[in-house]
């Protein structure tokens, strides 16, 4: 089984007054797992549904292996899909659910059952073929849905937030399993999610969408370290905005001089964007900064620190340092020596988190 090449070309779709897709262009390479990431309403699900055939774009084309499938009905497309809500047919047992597509295509019963058993073993649930969906846990149901989606050996696999209804632990194991399956089958996979951690941990590339267009598409490390736009920087991970001053090709921030990542801006006053894990905090009675809040997360602790000029910054410190950096401690704050991103200054230094913190760390 080999993956197909998928291309979204100039997709536009509007629902009444809201624009779901606004000239979306994206190419997915064969065998690649790409995550469509963005806040709700950014058009990621609409894009996926255009590929599945449940939605038709007002403009633009969807191409699979350079063939235009924009007007092909949903039941004639070669794409398996796993849905956000539980979608197993309640009246059929697991085996019949998995072989539903083969039954539609009139595959003989013996061959069907053989293939269903094969898939049940693939998802690690060989003994549940005779059970009904309501007898399964949420994680099992989504595994079976995955088996059903790949039963017909489609060349594209579409995952529409398949893990969002599951609890945290199951979510993590299942996403690893999906990735393992996807790699072994070499199937082109498009994974829609609003969970940045899910996207970063699973995908070959992550496409960040905003208001129906592509903001940036890159591999997870690049996306995290070198976000192309301030929106991506905000959306993926957490960013501190610290006031800084440009001096030549370096920037002065917190009394340090750091190299600038990318071209130096013309403005002198800028915002320096730094990740919480690159903020170093050391206890020091005349350091000028004060720990306000500390939330312990096990391996790390996230501190909210008030700086000398009154602005606040987030810092991730090792978990074992949490005790000596308790709220109320006077500290010194510095930054790791590495190139930093700068954005034209707005003169307000504060911390923004575009998305709720993921509950899995």
């Amino acid at each position, binding site marked *: 089984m080999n993956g197909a090449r998928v291309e979204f070309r100039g997709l536009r779709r509007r629902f009444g007054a809201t624009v779901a897709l606004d000239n979306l262009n994206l190419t997915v390479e064969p065998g690649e797992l790409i995550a469509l990431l963005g806040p709700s309403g950014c058009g990621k699900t609409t894009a996926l549904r255009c590929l*599945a055939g449940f939605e038709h774009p007002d403009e633009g084309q969807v191409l699979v292996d350079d063939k235009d499938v924009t007007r092909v009905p*949903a039941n004639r497309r070669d*794409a*398996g*899909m796993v*849905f956000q809500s539980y979608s197993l047919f*309640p009246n059929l047992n697991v085996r019949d659910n998995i072989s*539903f597509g083969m039954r*539609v295509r009139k595959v003989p019963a013996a061959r069907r059952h053989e293939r269903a058993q094969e898939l049940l073993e693939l998802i690690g649930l060989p003994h549940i073929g005779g059970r009904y969906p309501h007898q399964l846990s949420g994680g099992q149901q989504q595994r079976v849905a995955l088996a059903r989606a790949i039963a017909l050996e489609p060349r594209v696999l579409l995952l529409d937030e398949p893990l969002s209804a599951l609890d945290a632990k199951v979510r993590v194991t299942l996403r690893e399993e999906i990735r393992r399956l996807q790699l072994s089958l070499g199937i082109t996979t498009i994974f829609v999610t609003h969970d940045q951690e899910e996207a970063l941990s699973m995908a070959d590339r992550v496409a960040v969408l905003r208001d129906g267009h592509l903001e940036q598409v890159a591999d997870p490390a690049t996306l995290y370290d070198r976000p192309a736009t301030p929106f991506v920087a905000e959306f993926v991970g957490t960013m501190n905005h610290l006031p800084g001053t440009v001096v030549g090709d370096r920037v002065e921030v917190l009394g340090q001089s750091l190299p600038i990542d990318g071209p130096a801006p013309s403005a002198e006053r800028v915002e320096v964007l730094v990740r919480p894990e690159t903020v170093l905090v050391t206890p020091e009675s005349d350091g000028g900064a004060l720990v306000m809040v500390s939330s312990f997360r096990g391996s790390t602790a996230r501190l909210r620190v008030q700086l000398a000029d009154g602005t606040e910054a987030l810092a991730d410190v090792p978990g074992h340092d949490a005790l000596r950096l308790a709220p109320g401690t006077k500290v010194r704050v510095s930054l790791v020596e590495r190139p930093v991103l700068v954005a034209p200054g707005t003169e307000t230094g504060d911390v923004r988190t575009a998305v709720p913190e993921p509950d899995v760390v």
Partner: protein
Amino acid sequence: MATVTPQVAPAATPPAAAKGRPRRPRVWRGAVLVVAALYFLVPLLASFVFTVDDPSEGFTLDAYGQIFSAEGFGRSLLLSLGLGVVTIALVLLLTLPAMIAVRLSAPRLRTVLEVVCTLPLVVPPITFVAGISTVLRWGPDYLASTPFYQTIIAVQNPDFPVVLVLAYVVLALPFVYRSLDAGLGAIDVRTLSEAARNLGASWPHVVFRVIIPNLRSGLASAGFLTLALVLGEFTIAQLLSFQTFPVWIYTISGSQAQVSVAVSVFSLLITWLLLLVLSSAGARQRSGS
């Protein structure tokens, strides 16, 4: 619950709490059940006693024997059953596709559909039948020169009055709508049909193999309510003078009071049997075989 083996009992929750809690509700439950049972059973028992008690002979089942030999019994019962079956088929054919379509592609029209389907509930049958009989009376005059003349005569065929089917379809709409709406609400129609479409199923396949099998209990209750309605409807059939089952019961009650009550008891039994059959069909779906 009652047969907990000694081995597992100690590990279970504190026995006092487990035993003490259900007791109070159980008393109330019993009381409510008794009151409700009295309300339903007393008239039934009274009817039954009336049918089997002959002042001169004492206990006798004669009245029940006479049902089957009574003039018009078979014909009117078959007519009512036939009307019921055709009404069920027609009303489901009308509502089910419309409701599925509205759920899938026009969710905003749902309230409109709901209001339209519920409307017959607020129109009294007497108003309804007045309208129908007016149309039936005036129609032939206006339509005399058109092919519709034949139609309006044909729908009044006393052997199978199609006009009653049409009227009953309207009367059954609210009940059918409610049953199907509950049934469709219990499954995620959109996701299920999209999943089936994604696996290559055509639209007819989606409706017949995916939606209808998962709607069995909703369809069963819609069918049962419609059948009960048709078997019990008196006003319209009487005023349009068709010999349906309830009209026949009413007709013979004048001459043979005992037989007419026996028929009522008998038809109640039939209705219960039907209900049992249908609800066990719904239950079988739950267990999934």
